[in-house]
Each structure stands twice: as C-alpha cells, then as structure tokens.
C-alpha cells in the first residue's frame, strides 16, 4: 500500500505539474523576460487604482450581501439557490448587456417614464448610470455575478458544518437565530471563503468583457486598457509588461484584502465581551437587503432580454421617447441560430470532457489528501491559473502546444487542456469542503462491516458527494463555455464554440441581436444547472440525510 500510495502521490504531482505548472512557468517566464524592459512605458496609476477599487468594492459587496442573505434565510437556502442558479450560470457579458439595456439613457425604462415623469424630451446628455465613470456600474454588475457564487459556496460549506448543534447552543444562550449565525457561523465560513474571495478579486481585476459594456470607459480599468492595447497593435513587449503589472496589482490587492480579514479576526478576539452589539443586528439585514436588490435587478433586466430580442431595431432609428417602431419579429433569432447551432457539438464536447477530467483529478487529489493530510501547496498550485493574467500565460501554453505539434491539428485536445486550467480549480473548490467534511466514522463503520476501500468510496462517499459533484460538473460546463482566449489560442481560432461565434457576431449588431446572443449564451449553462439541480434532488429524494441544507 505504501509504495502504491507513494506512486499515486508522485503521479498526482506529475500531472498537476505538467498540466498546470509547465505552461504556467513558461508563460510567466515569457512575460517577465519580454515585459520587464517596458514596465515604465505602461505604468498607469489611474488605471491601476481604478482596477483595485472596482475589484475590492465589488467582491466586498458580493460577499457582504451573500453572508447577509445566508444569515437571514437560514434553512430556506434551497429557494435562494433556485434564484441564484440562473445568475450563476449566466455569462458576465449577458448581465452587463441586460443592465445597459435597462439603465441606458435611451433604454426602455427611461422611455417609458419620459417625458411625463422625467421631463426628458430628448435623451439626457449628462446621464452616466449605465456606465459610470467612477466604475459604479461595473461594481454592481460584478457583484451581481459573484453574489450567487458565494451563496452556493456557503450553502455547500454549511452542509459540512454541525450547524444545528451550534444553533442550539446559541439559542440556549438567548441569541436569535440571525445573531447566533452572525457570531458563530460567520467567522468559520469566512475563513473558508478566503480562497474563493481571492479568485473573485482576481477575476474582477482581469475581466475585460464587462467593462467593455458598462464602463468605466474614460479612465479604464487596467485590464480593459491592456486588452484594448492588445487588439490595437501595441508592441508585444508592452502587452507583456502590462501582464506583469497586472500580476503585481493582483498581489497588492490580495494583500489589502488579507489585511482586512486579519483586522476582522482581531476585532473578533477583542469584542468577546460585548457580543450583543448593534452591528450584528443591523448588518445581516443590510446585507440581505442589498443582496435581494442586486438579484432582483439582475433578474428584471434579464427578463427584458426576451422582449428586446424580438423588437427589431435595425434599419431605423427609434426617436426618443417613442418605445419602438412597431416592428416585431424573429429575424434576430433566425440569424443567431444559423450561426450558433453548428457550434453546439464542439462546445458541449469540450465542456463535458473538461468537466469530467477535472472531476476525476479533483477527486483523486482529495482521496490522496485523506490519506496523506492536507497539501496546501497543491491547492495553491491548482489556483494559480486563476490568479495570473490569462493573456501572458496562454501565450506560453500555446507556444508549448505549437512546439509539440498539437496546435493547430489537435484542437479538441488542446482546447480541453487549456480549459482544464480554468475549470479544475473551481471544481476542486466546490467539492473539496464536502469531501473533507465527510465523517471519518462512516468509513470506519463500513470497514468494520467488511466493505473494501472501493466499495466504501462508491457506496458511501460518492452518494454524499453527489450534489456537489453534479453542481461542479455543471459549473465546469458553464466556465468552459465562457472561455474565449483559451479556446482561441488552443486552436489558432479554427474551432468555433458558441461563445467565440457569439463574440465575433456581437460587434456591430442591433440591440435585438445582442439580446438574442445574451439569451443564447445564458440558456445553455442555465439548462445544465437546472438539469444538475433536478438530478441532485432526485438522487437525494431516497436518502434522508442528504435532503436540504
């Protein structure tokens, strides 16, 4: 067993090292080597500050709302999960699109209210709410997207904690459910949300498609600038240097949020004596209200997409404040389906391959961890692809693929490899808490009953893991479907997925076609999530202990 186990550990090392470390190191080396001389050319304090500000604000807002909702809606999280699922699955760009349709100065909403309520007889000229120059629209859109991610994680975490025992304890001390949760559960959960929080911050720092739709577009975020420069013929050295700067910014931003976390735990230590403070009464309600507001706005704006998708905007202008010119039709749908449907097999194949392989690797690592203890470094290595700017790092991977003769002739293989880098960390993150939380006594009992390792794994552990597994699978599909640059570089652009086809289509199209693409991009992952949800409920229905959260 010992040599077998050692072999397994070494194999895990090699796989993680090769699949992730190799392209990563190569990419980083390339960025540093090619980019360092140009660092001063691309340094831009305003853009860097805006990036850090929007990333920290949006992650804080999302996290705060999520814990507020979790505290207020204990035991009713199932309903919340239902609402969050579509939001979780929807590509960021679709929400950004929906928000700009809802809040624009020439949007539906303003037209409906004009001029009788607003006094506007032409589109307001000083309107900035759909793309606020200080980044507020960006912050709100990002928070809308990250809030459900935190909610699901909290939901999964809760199932691995002895919540009811804790609650009994705090109730017997005279605290309300909400206050009890805020004081006892929150500190534990927050500690475990640290890594996801880092991922969210880094994501917000490097996201490009959202600021392209909702601003800020005068002083742009640094990543947005970097992308704009990249597509507008900036010398490669400067693009690489931007990647290095973005990496530096990521480290600083993470350090800032780590400091805030430290302060929170320090505060916890000192406030022991006056637990009944006002914050614990107000904060959960405030967070929950913000959360409901965010989710409600997102859902309303998304609900407008289908309406927008059949209002034909092309070929004429719609004078303000008229609502539309009376042309309703499915032209946008016909056009988009013609392009979209042929890409479905490739999209689903790559997504399913990536998710399945990621699940296998994640489970393997977790099983090893059970026998050999928590390998922190392994987890960190897994997360690195999400912590490094995509652009520099992908170039390294593509370089490798070309060298090995795998690009461009083995597109599916390469696309799966590249997607794996981005899908595996999320999948690991989703199933790890549950797997780690599985009571060791189950295994002892089952062993005593004469079951061998495999039979315990399949008959005890997998059923417990079933819910996070199917969610992780669906999440993997959704992440994979939303990857543009990795798909492009893995195949030299020769393979088209729904997203790559959609993005090339989006520019220069009327609002109706954008709405159609927004819907197409969100329907596929939402469908996967609903299927996962149905599957999980069906599986849990025969097992009493797995129901609810």
């Amino acid at each position, binding site marked *: 067993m010992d040599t077998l186990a050692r072999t397994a550990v070494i194999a895990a090392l090699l796989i993680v090292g090769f699949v992730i470390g190799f392209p990563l190191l190569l990419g980083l080396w390339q960025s540093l080597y090619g980019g360092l001389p140009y660092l001063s050319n691309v340094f831009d304090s305003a853009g860097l500050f805006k990036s850090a500000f929007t990333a920290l604000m949006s992650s804080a807002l999302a996290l705060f709302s999520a814990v507020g909702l979790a505290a207020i809606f204990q035991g009713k999280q199932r309903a919340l999960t239902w609402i969050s699922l579509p939001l979780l699955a929807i590509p960021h760009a679709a929400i950004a699109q929906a928000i700009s349709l809802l809040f624009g100065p*020439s949007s539906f909403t303003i037209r409906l209210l004009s001029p009788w309520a607003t006094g506007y007889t032409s589109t307001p000229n000083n309107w900035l709410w759909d793309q606020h120059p200080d980044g507020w629209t960006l912050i709100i859109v990002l928070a809308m997207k990250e809030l459900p991610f935190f909610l699901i994680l909290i939901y999964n975490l809760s199932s691995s904690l002895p919540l009811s025992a804790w609650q009994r304890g705090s109730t017997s001390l005279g605290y309300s459910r909400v206050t009890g949760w805020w004081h006892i559960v929150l500190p534990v959960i927050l500690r475990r949300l640290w890594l996801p929080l880092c991922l969210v911050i880094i994501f917000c720092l490097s996201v490009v498609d959202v600021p392209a739709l909702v601003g800020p577009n*005068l002083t742009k975020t640094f990543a947005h600038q970097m992308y704009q420069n990249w597509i*507008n013929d900036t010398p490669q050295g400067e693009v690489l240097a931007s990647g290095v700067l973005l990496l530096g910014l990521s480290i600083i931003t993470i350090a800032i949020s780590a400091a805030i976390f430290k302060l929170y735990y320090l505060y916890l230590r000192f406030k022991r004596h006056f637990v009944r403070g006002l914050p614990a009464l107000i904060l959960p309600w405030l967070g929950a209200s913000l959360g409901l507001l965010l989710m409600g706005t997102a859902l309303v704006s998304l609900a407008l997409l289908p309406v927008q998708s059949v209002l034909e905007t092309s070929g004429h202008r719609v004078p303000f404040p008229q609502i539309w010119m009376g042309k309703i039709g499915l032209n946008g749908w016909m*056009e988009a389906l013609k392009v979209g449907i042929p890409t479905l097999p490739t999209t689903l194949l790559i997504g399913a391959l990536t998710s399945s392989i990621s699940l296998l690797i994640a489970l393997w690592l977790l099983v090893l961890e059970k026998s050999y203890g928590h390998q922190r470094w392994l987890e960190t290595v897994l997360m690195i692809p999400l912590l490094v700017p995509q652009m520099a790092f992908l*170039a390294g991977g593509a370089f490798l693929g070309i060298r090995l003769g795998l690009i461009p002739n083995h597109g599916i293989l390469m696309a799966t490899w590249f997607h794996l880098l981005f899908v595996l960390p999320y999948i690991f993150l989703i199933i790890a808490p549950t797997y780690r939380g599985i009571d060791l006594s189950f295994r002892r009992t089952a062993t005593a009953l004469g079951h061998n390792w495999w039979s315990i794994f399949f008959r005890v552990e997998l059923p417990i893991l079933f819910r996070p597994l199917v969610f992780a699978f669906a999440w993997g599909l959704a992440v994979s479907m939303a990857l543009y640059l990795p798909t492009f570089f893995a195949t030299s*652009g020769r393979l088209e997925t729904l997203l*790559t*086809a959609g993005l090339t289509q989006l520019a220069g199209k009327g609002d109706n076609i954008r709405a159609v693409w927004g819907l197409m991009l969100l329907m596929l992952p939402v469908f996967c999530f609903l299927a996962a949800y149905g599957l999980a409920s069906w599986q849990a229905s025969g097992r009493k202990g797995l129901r609810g959260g």
Partner: protein
Amino acid sequence: MRFLSLGAAITALSSIVSAENTDNTVWDRVLLEAHGQTVYWNAWGGDDNINDYIEWARVQVAEIYGVKLHHVKLIDTAAAIQVVEMEFAAGKREDGGSVDMIWINGENFARLKRQDMLGQPFVEDLPNYSLTDFESNLSIQQDFSEKTEGLESPWGLAQFTILFDTARFEKFPTTALELLSWAESNPGRFAYPSPPNFVGTTFIKQLALETMEDPSLLYSPAVENSAILLEPLWSYLEQLHPYLWRQGQAFPDSHINLRDLFNRDEIDVILTFNPGDAAALVAQEIMPPSIAPATFKLGHITNTHFLALPGNSESRAGAMVVANFLLSPAAQARKADPSIWGDTTVLDLSKLDALDRNLFQTYTTALGDAVLEPHASWVPVLEAGWKSKFSQ
C-alpha cells in the same frame, strides 16, 4: 443556385481575359499546386455581410480552382498576428503554420514585415494585380508609410468620413471649426470612439492635420518633442469635449457602437472608415436611409486594406489563388455592391474591358479628396497624448 453559376461563369471569363496579358507559366504552376490545398483565411468575422461574402468566395474557389477555403473568424486581427508570432517563436519558420492568409493593414502589416514573417513577395505573380491602380495609388504602394514591397495584395479602399442624419440636418460641418460650432448648438449629439480604437485615432489624426501649424510635419517621423506640436489639437478637443455625448465623461469603445447609439437616438453621427458605408448600411437595413457622408474641405484620410501570406504557410499557392480571385473584376464588383458589402474596389476601372467595367456601373462610391495617412510613428504620440490629457 443559378446566381452562383452565373458568378462562376463571369469569374471564369474574367480570369481568361486577364490571363491573356500575363506570363502564364509561373501562374500555371501555382494553379496546379493550389489544387486540393486547404487555405485558412484569418479575417475579422464581426459582420454577417462580410462573412457571407467570404462564404461566397469559398464556394467559388472550390468550384473553379479546387481550393478548400476556411474562414477563421477573428474578433480582431491582432489575434492572428499573435498566433503567427508564437509559431515563429516556437520554431515553425518555414512550415507548420496555421494561418495561410490574413486580412490586414497598417501596424499589423508593419509588425509582421519587420519580423520578416511574410515570406517572399508574391503580389506581382498575381495576374489580376495588373488591373489595380498600383502605379499611381500611393496607398497601394505604402501601407501607413510602410512600403508594401509585394508582400500584401490590395483588397479594398478605406476612407475616413462622418455620416450624419439628413432628416435632421441639411448640411454637415466641413471644417474643424464648423464642427465645433455644430457641437455647441447640438450638445450631446456628437461622439467619437476613444483612441486607441483606430477610427477614434483617425478622427484625431484628421483634426491634427487641420489644427497643426505645419501639418506636413506629420508625414515625417515623430521625434522626441513632437508632442508639443500637438498642443493646438488638445486645446481644440478641450473645447469640443463638453459638448460631446455624455459631456465627454464617457466615450464609446468602438466605432461600431456608434450605429446603435444613432439608432437609439442618442447621437446624430456615425464615424466610419468605409466610404461605401452610407449606401451599404442602408442597403443592408442596418441604418435608416437618411444618412449621408460629410465632405471635409481638407480631404479625407485614406488607406488600403490588404491580404498578406505568413511565410510559414504550407498552402501559399492556394492562398495566392484566393488572393488573385479576390482581385478579379467579378469578385471586386460583388464586394462593391452595397447590398452585399459596399467596399470600394482597388481596381483601376480604366484598365478593365467594357464588359467588366459594366459590373461596377452602379456601385462606384464617389470618394472624397484623399489625404494620406500620417507617418505611423505619430500614432503612439497621438494616443499617449490623448490619454494623458483626457483620461486621467
């Protein structure tokens, strides 16, 4: 179907016509080699009409020359440049490339040329190249001041202009000063995409040509303190910006967004690099029929867009055949048709015989007076200056 075979017949005819006056043996060898080759053409894929046109070309070259053409749809050309650079860096310098042909111009071309990634000159081997106005059209010989040297084949002409709504305005400003007073009396109705979007950069180039004391300096390389020469441009823009869309606090990301903003009744102008856009956007039912191009007293910045062949392609002959086909009168005429695309031809109509010339009869776009692109070294100066003035 009937239309396709008609197109094929015309094309076959025109290739016979042009074959008469070229040395045949080299080209015959290319045709032979091209048969059965697969050509991956990396071209911006954001416009259905252009995509449909490329799809038409795909069917044509398969039927006539047995070349299998694939359109790799790009969000931006720079992505294909990156791929080629990566392949060369990975040692694929002679073969094994994944990009056989790129729709390209300006800095992207200069970038590949500088790094010697475009192989041997090929343009003069294309029989149809002789039909272009290569002797006198400066923008065919030079691509943003970079000599083309036979490394890219001209495909279409671009000219900067502003489209405005004739339903609301009888005439549109012809000079920078007129534009300023127009904006003052129509606050919020003018917008331009922020540099480095190429149309935004071209807009400020056009203004620089008009506001600078000695605009001829723009045609020699920018030097260290060239930025000072742009002061009149910045003070002009400082006056203009408060009257822009969103009072200059937000700028559209791309010139393409202007179409939506126009149709949503937020602005009254569209900036474009395609002089045929006025007719084409109407014919394709993207914009209302009331749009018309403005005329600038100074003339309009003009350039050419091209097709280049990376040196590590294994289907160079196939790509040459496609490039030549795209220069044929039939293909160029179809491209110039506003209901198909509306891109201005690079052919010199006086070199065509009557039959071919007739193909273009209804779709020649009247170009404004042409002004050449300033030297490429001014682009970073303009972009950095704009950024430090307005986006901090």
